[in-house]
């Protein structure tokens, strides 16, 4: 897969404040890449730098092979950006908003009207196309802003906190739309968020940011195995197993330690492959296994582990 975003040692300072402090990452075509970090981590600044609306203080970036610092306009022709606040013209209708941005993006006059109606329909706004945006609910505004980012069918989409300020239902609706975009049209998405669940649900890979720096990067499994080279499995039995079962599991290759007592054990293993071997071993020993649950780390665990490591 082609790499469409390359960032090397990118920097942006505001006075003494290092908003983006030497970031390096690559995004391949078709990926959903997350920029995950707390307030002030530098997510919005990164999006601005990559679209060439803010000049960098150092480092390099290439988007579709263009340098945002000099060829921003060529990049913006191929990107869509959902800004942090919807930034819609509240006094204009949804149709007027989209036709305006569609024109700026160069959609030909003869297809513009239909394209706008189609996308409004896709986002469930077809009944309100000629209503002023100020009469819309927050969720509708967010969907309209998403429609604006997509009206010219950009191959690369930036989403800056797409669900912030939405109620859970509206947030879920927006997230489903986003997931659908990547699945249906293979759109590459860079998602800036501080919402761990959202990142977990949508992103193939994430860069965990803090104060302008990347603390860790990779898929959820990569990050987990980097942070926690071993994993824990909770095993529950129907009846307390025999002493020999304990010994057999303990002696098993890939098992680091066994704790717990009675019918609840915790086993630390080197990798997930070891788990089926343990189950076989226990079954051979005649143990009555009720549940085997590997402890999954969530992005939240990763996030807090990284933040703790940082301090």
């Amino acid at each position, binding site marked *: 897969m082609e790499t469409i975003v390359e960032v090397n040692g990118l920097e942006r300072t505001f006075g003494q404040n290092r908003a983006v402090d030497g970031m390096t990452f690559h995004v391949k075509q078709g990926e959903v890449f997350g920029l995950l970090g707390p307030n002030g981590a530098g997510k919005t600044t990164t999006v*601005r730098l990559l*679209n*060439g*609306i*803010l*000049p960098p203080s150092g480092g390099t970036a290439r988007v579709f092979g263009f340098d945002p610092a000099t060829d*921003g*306009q*060529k990049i*913006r*022709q191929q*990107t869509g*950006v959902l*800004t*942090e*606040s919807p*930034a*819609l*013209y*509240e*006094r*204009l209708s949804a149709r*007027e908003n989209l036709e*305006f*941005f569609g*024109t*700026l*993006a*160069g959609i030909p*006059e003869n297809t513009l009207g239909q394209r706008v109606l189609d996308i409004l329909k896709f986002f469930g706004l077809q009944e309100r196309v000629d209503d002023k945006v100020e009469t819309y609910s927050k969720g509708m505004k967010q969907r309209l*802003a998403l429609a*604006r980012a997509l009206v010219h069918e950009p191959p690369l989409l930036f989403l800056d906190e797409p669900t912030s300020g939405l109620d859970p239902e509206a947030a879920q609706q927006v997230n489903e739309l986003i997931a659908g975009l990547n699945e249906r049209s293979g759109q590459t998405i860079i998602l800036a968020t501080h919402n761990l669940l959202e990142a977990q649900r949508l992103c193939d890979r994430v860069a965990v940011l803090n104060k302008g720096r990347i603390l860790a990067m990779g898929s959820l499994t990569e990050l987990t195995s980097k942070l926690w080279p071993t994993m824990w499995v909770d095993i529950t039995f129907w009846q307390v197993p025999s002493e020999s079962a304990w010994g057999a599991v303990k002696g098993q290759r890939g098992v680091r330690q066994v704790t717990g007592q009675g019918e609840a054990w915790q086993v630390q293993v080197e990798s997930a492959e070891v788990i089926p071997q343990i189950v076989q071993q226990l079954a051979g020993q005649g143990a009555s296994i009720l549940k085997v649950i590997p402890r999954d780390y969530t992005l939240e665990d990763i996030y807090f582990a990284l933040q703790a490591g940082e301090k």
Partner: protein
Amino acid sequence: MNWRSIWAIAKKDLKEVRQNKAAWGPGIVVPLVFAIIMPMMFIILPQVIPVEDVQRELGDLDVMLRAMPPALQALFEGKSLEQMFVLYMAGFMLAPLFLIMPLMFSSVIGSDSFVGERERKTMEALLYAPTSDMELFLGKVLAAVIPAIGLSWITYVVYIIVVNVASYPLFGEIWFPLPTWYPLMLWMTPALAVLGISATVLISSRVRTFMEAYQMSASLVVLVLALVAGQISGVLFLGVGTTLVIGSIIWLVDAALIYLSVKKFKRSALVAKL
């Protein structure tokens, strides 16, 4: 340069201004006063007020007459008292007052499109559009300049019709516009429209709200009032030549201000103020 984008920006800005009553309110009231109410008063007044009052007004006329080039002085020869009064009032005394229009219209629209865009937090999405800084700038400038000139010209046309129609019984001929009006309408009016917008762009980077920008650029009107005072006192009579010269000076100032505003109006600077 992508003109389709430029026009789209200009049209969008005008659609927005239309929704801002504080912006278009004066755009209706001022032309109405200038083109209809004022001339009607000048023309009806001498027919209803006592002759002595007209004569006293014409005392002031003497000052201005002396400042006029001979060709224009000739206009007053052989005219009746009433005719002289109308000629003086409608044709000369308040002529520079009309110059408030291009200045005011363009700075009001400019305040809404340059500062209002930021105040309403819509600037960011616009910066992400695939247009150049220059296209954005031009779109917004045209949104202010074209209606400012257009509306001024419409007002002139209405004024010309009203003056001629209302004073026809008095003169028995179509006598307006006078030669001094042509450079005023065609040279100075566009120059002031451009002055209004370029000054507003520079002001806009320093203020936060539409109202602040509106009030600051409104102070430019002092410039026009100075011209009115010059005309009435006879100190600076706006003949054809003088108007052309002052107009040219304004165009030069315009060029300098536009140069500075283009340099200021860059994404990299605008994004810092979002």
